[in-house]
């Protein structure tokens, strides 16, 4: 599954990341690279540091992950994790 390691790192580091709740964290493998005020800044730094081919995760820091609602009949593309 893509980003498996990064998501695990996010889960592990979440208690300390919550001091910056609402901001965006950039994670590559098991390293927290930085915390940014905007999604764009985190994405920009991710590509700048790791280029277009190395995986990295950008995620809003939240104590509980936000659930998005789609009222239309569409099928979400499940990641391996949620199958």
């Amino acid at each position, binding site marked *: 599954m893509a980003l498996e390691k990064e998501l695990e790192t996010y889960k592990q580091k979440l208690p300390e990341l919550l001091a910056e709740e609402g901001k965006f964290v950039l994670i590559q493998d098991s390293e927290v690279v930085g915390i940014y005020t905007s999604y764009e800044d985190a994405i920009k730094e991710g590509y700048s540091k790791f*280029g277009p081919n190395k995986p990295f995760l950008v995620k809003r820091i939240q104590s509980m992950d936000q659930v*998005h609602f*789609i009222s239309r009949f*569409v099928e979400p*593309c499940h990641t391996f994790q949620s199958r």
Partner: protein
Amino acid sequence: MDAFVSVSHARQTALQTAGQPIPKPQTVRALLDTGASVTCLDSTILTNLNIPPTGTTLMNTPTTGSTPATVNVYDVSILIPGATPPPLFLHTIAVAESQLFQSQGFHALIGRDILGACVFHYNGPLNLLTVSY
């Protein structure tokens, strides 16, 4: 409405720096959907853009029941042409991956993350929706 989806500005810069080709922007049939809290793209569009996910999110739809699904999130740019220039251009926005849009005649749902910056005027008798941004 038609919109154009491409790799995000940051990814485009990274591809240029690495000497790799930049995928051709994709023309998509998009539905403005106030019932979608996030903008969604059909997987075929994301495959054509050859982009890896840079995040995940939880999504609840009529097909998921009460348990949200974890879906991949991708950074893209979206251009929505208007009746008069300039177009609405988002150079880096997170979109969620979904399926079955094409059978319904569209490849994208433009959700409230984008529509939140717009003003709607619906004239029922004229069957006319005006969107300003």
